[in-house]
């Protein structure tokens, strides 16, 4: 006799509602899509421009987030023997972009890196209204996802493996490279995925800090928003593209790299 599953049937109600809440809007999108006009709407050069810009900047932002975020996650994960105040401060600072409304984040970036910004005024080049600004805005809002995800994975790694590696003669950097990183790789992959998709969908910080110019700073979410003003069908078409990209990213990641997130 198969073992009884310990899943209370009553939980299906809130679970079902939750699932419906997440899925039905997407169903609505697909149903109302102007399938007949799709080829015409999507073949406009502005669409290709926006899509290319979005994917390129999101990829770059994810790479930057990995390079900066993984060490930061390590600092956070191994900070248990620090005094309380610096430890809590760093953790709070890393979490701030998550709770800040993205537009506020954009304004903050302007005040720091804009032409008259705290740092920006001393720079020989201008940052706002460039693709670099798009990347910076995306890193600001998306990196915390990666940091917190990797930190969680790092805390779950048995630190005694690192001790064993040390007794075998490995230096601290070698231990990080050959033992810690590989053991934490699934967590890093999950964090990178979250970061990429968050960067892809970023709107408020980008439009405030980087502005909007086709091919340069007009990402797909911004293009979609602008289209919504005059041509909702075009906006729906662009939304479908964004949805498709997200699904492709999710599906192409194999399960053993991101266990639990993919099918």
């Amino acid at each position, binding site marked *: 006799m198969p073992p009884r599953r310990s899943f209370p049937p009553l939980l299906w109600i809130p679970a079902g509602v939750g699932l419906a809440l997440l899925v039905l809007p997407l169903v609505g999108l697909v149903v109302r899509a102007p399938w007949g006009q799709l080829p015409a709407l999507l073949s406009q050069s502005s669409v290709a421009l926006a899509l290319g810009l979005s994917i390129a900047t999101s990829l770059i932002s994810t790479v930057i987030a990995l390079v900066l975020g993984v060490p930061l996650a390590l600092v956070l994960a191994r900070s248990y023997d620090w005094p309380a105040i610096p430890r809590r401060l760093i953790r709070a600072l890393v979490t701030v972009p998550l709770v800040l409304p993205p537009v506020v984040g954009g304004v903050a970036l*302007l*005040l720091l890196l*804009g*032409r*008259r910004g705290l740092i920006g005024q001393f720079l020989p080049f*201008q940052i*706002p*209204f460039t693709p670099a600004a798009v990347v910076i805005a995306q890193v600001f809002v998306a990196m915390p996802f990666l940091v917190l995800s990797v930190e969680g994975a790092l805390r779950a790694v048995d630190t005694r493996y690192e001790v064993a590696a040390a007794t075998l003669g490995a230096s601290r950097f070698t231990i990080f490279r050959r033992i810690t990183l590989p053991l934490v790789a699934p967590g890093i992959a999950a964090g990178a995925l979250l970061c990429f998709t968050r960067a892809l969908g970023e709107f408020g910080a980008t*439009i405030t800090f*980087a*502005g*909007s*110019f*086709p091919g340069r*700073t*007009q990402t797909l979410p*911004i293009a979609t*928003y*602008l*289209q*919504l*003003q*005059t041509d*909702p069908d075009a906006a729906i078409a662009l939304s479908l593209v964004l949805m498709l990209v997200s699904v492709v990213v999710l599906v192409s990641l194999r399960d053993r790299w991101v266990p639990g997130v993919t099918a």
Partner: protein
Amino acid sequence: MRLLAALLLLALAGCSGPSPTPSTTDFDPVSPLSGEVTVFAAASLTETFERIARVFMQENPDVTVTLSFGGSSGLATQIAEGAPADVFAAASPTTMQASGATGAQNFATNVLEIAVPAGNEAGVTGLDDFANADLAIALCAVEVPCGAASDTLFKQKAITPSVDTYEQDVRAVLTKVELGEVDAGLVYSTDVEAAAGAVQGIEVDSAAVDYPIAQLTDNEAAAAFIAFVLSEKGQKMLAAAGFGAAA
């Protein structure tokens, strides 16, 4: 509370000497106006309509006016999709059409004006400077009324602007100018007025843009609000903000 207000106004009405010409609010002291009015208005109307609504609510204490500002085209789309607005005040006849509203009346006009950061460090003097690639320029996106108007203006003057960013509504352009992030932007003269001190204006020779207003639902208070906007009081407040009279 209603009864008290009614009695008070009844008394006042009786005390003001010769029977007063009914103001355009068509105020009936016996059954005062009440209810809620949701107004969708173009971003360039922000301060002015807030003032108008405040005075309207003072005169009609039982009416609550809720204002929602944004790019007219976005608002028009929302209305077409069924957003619960009672009144729509748009920045162009085109967007009013797009919303599907009928029976619109023009209540004001506006003209485009160049906005530069206070101090005008870049030394902008006119529309020709917009073609200068070394300057940071912000314009409204062509999908919104002020963007369409800007586009027409530049085509008329045969100037190709070297734009750095197309913003999603006129207030976003204004903000970028205020913050000094761009050297110049093209906004409405009322926006320059609203941000006086933070920006300087340079007049341009542009055609006036009509602002229509329409009632969307069968709401007595909404009709009263529109009438108030069109009344002498409302028109004075619009003029004070820099709007031109309706054509």
